[in-house]
């Protein structure tokens, strides 16, 4: 027994180690390839934004170049851009808050109470997402003009809410399904009203779901264009529309466009990094979570 122990044992271990190493190398090779696929366009975008105007599309490319923040300075000197950017930040953030305020309680009710025809209700909610915006923008234009919502931030906030509400309801319903009912019962026994139980106990427990759906809603609203185009004029113009303004009918300001596009990525990236740790748990759609 002791005869052939040490040598083959260690060599076998070595082999197993190498196998694990190979698996890990292949894994990272694939992940890095995709990282490259993701990063290359982003890198190109960034490099366009950091090159002097006129040098954006040079071929062969200057892989190495002296970066300049000239474009960004230009961008942020244009008061319209700053206004639109701020506009968008405010409107989108407000819409995320509002859509959560509307959607999360509704999702809670859908999860906890017996709703007649629940399935159909859920599909109906999802159907609000099925028509292309282009097909609904005219009716909304009417509503907005008649309700004096045209070219108002409130109007845009409502529009963004309508884009994201179905998503919020679906994701959060699934998430609430995974939170044990005993938690609220404990709160009620502890003397909390149903609402207090929801607000103080269930909501905090739903944090991962809320953060996840918030970031996704944020993104969907942040990149929205068509409603912004048709339903605003000057006061509530979102940043997407401003980005468009670098695309002239005669020429495109490549560097500025790139700088503006990069600037648009930044809030999302920051938000993403902030809620990163919740993302894994937040979107598992009712599959019961491991602790």
């Amino acid at each position, binding site marked *: 027994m002791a005869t052939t122990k040490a040598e083959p044992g260690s060599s076998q271990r070595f082999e197993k180690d190498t196998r694990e190493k190979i698996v890990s190398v292949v894994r990272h090779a694939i992940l890095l390839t995709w990282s490259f696929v993701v990063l290359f366009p982003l890198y190109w975008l960034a490099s366009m934004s950091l090159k002097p105007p006129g040098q954006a599309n040079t071929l062969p490319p200057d892989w190495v170049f002296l970066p300049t923040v000239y474009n960004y300075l230009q961008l942020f000197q244009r008061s319209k851009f700053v206004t639109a950017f701020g506009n968008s930040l405010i409107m989108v953030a407000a819409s995320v808050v509002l859509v959560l305020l509307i959607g999360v309680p509704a999702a809670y009710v859908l999860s906890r109470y017996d709703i007649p025809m629940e399935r159909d209700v859920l599909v109906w909610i999802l159907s609000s997402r099925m028509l292309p915006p282009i097909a609904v923008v005219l009716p909304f234009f009417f509503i907005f003009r008649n309700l004096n919502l045209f070219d108002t931030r409130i109007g845009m906030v409502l529009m963004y809410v309508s884009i994201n509400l179905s998503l919020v309801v679906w994701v959060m319903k699934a998430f609430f399904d995974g939170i044990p009912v005993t938690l609220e019962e404990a709160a009620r026994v502890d003397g909390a009203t149903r609402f207090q139980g929801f607000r103080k106990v269930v909501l905090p427990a739903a944090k991962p779901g809320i953060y996840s759906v918030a970031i996704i809603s944020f993104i969907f609203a942040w990149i929205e264009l068509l409603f912004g185009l048709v339903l605003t004029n000057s006061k509530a113009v979102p940043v997407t529309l401003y980005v468009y303004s670098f695309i002239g009918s005669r020429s495109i300001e490549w560097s500025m466009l790139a700088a503006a596009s990069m600037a648009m990525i930044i809030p999302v990236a920051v938000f993403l990094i902030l809620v990163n740790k919740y993302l*894994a748990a937040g979107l598992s759609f009712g599959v019961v979570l491991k602790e």
Partner: protein
Amino acid sequence: MSTPTQTQSETRTKPEGKIARVRRLWNDHLPIWFIAPMATVMVLITFFPGAYDLYLSLIKEPTLNVFAADFVGLSNFSTAFSRGGALHSLIITITVVVSALILESVLGFVLAALVAGVGSGRVKSFYRVLFIIPMAVAPVSLATIGRIMLNSEVGIIPYVINSATPFTAPAFLSKMPLLTVILMDTWNWTPFMFIIFYAGLSSVPDTLVEASRVDGAPLWRRYVHVIIPYMKPVVFVATLIRMIDLFRTFGVVYGLTQGGPGTATQLVSINIYEQMFVNNQVTVAAAIAVVYLIMVVALCNIVIAKVGFDGVWD
């Protein structure tokens, strides 16, 4: 014996002030208060535009005055299919939806599985954030920058392909527009599938995977027979939502190709746009939208019926 009412009161019945009464009303009917705003918004954003489109699709000249409207039955629908290219754009849309959905799901899943297996938490976080970023690129930017990057003369991508690989870069936008559009959408939206699948994967119990390993299942069978079925709710909801979103894709494709060359990438949404904003055929556009809505709703119901909510939310 007394049969207490279904809704118990939260507090003992004492003489109550106004505020207390409001509070009681609030708490006793909480579900109604909770669901009412959502229901209101939903009614507004589904019924009104839907009804409007339906109305438009049935009349001759667009007018808001229902009494003056000249109802023409289904003639707008026949125009949509005879001259409006509705069928063609439906086929294009379905092609894009199906292939992009498959690509994004598979890729998203593979990436999620690979990232989930990464040992170090920091590296994991890094990939997780990085892989989501493409979603944040606005369609305007993506389409415009994409066009120039793909440009056969001055674009960086053909340049890199030509100079760094043995292949010759194809003319992306003119010779393989549909594929280019699909790939572009894949770049843009694989993150959505990735993050949801990632969340789903992190919730598969380890023992289940181990049980299948002990049972002798090789890697791919483990995924096919054990992990993916376990994640069914996640897969189902993610693909359903992505499918719906794909059906209404507009910005990126319009920016890239405007539906061309010819009508090679003319999605339904682009067709509706052109009918409405180029041809000024609002009623025909509405007819296409109605057909399309019916189709998507039907499709969703079929998918839901086939796959079922069972095992999704029970």
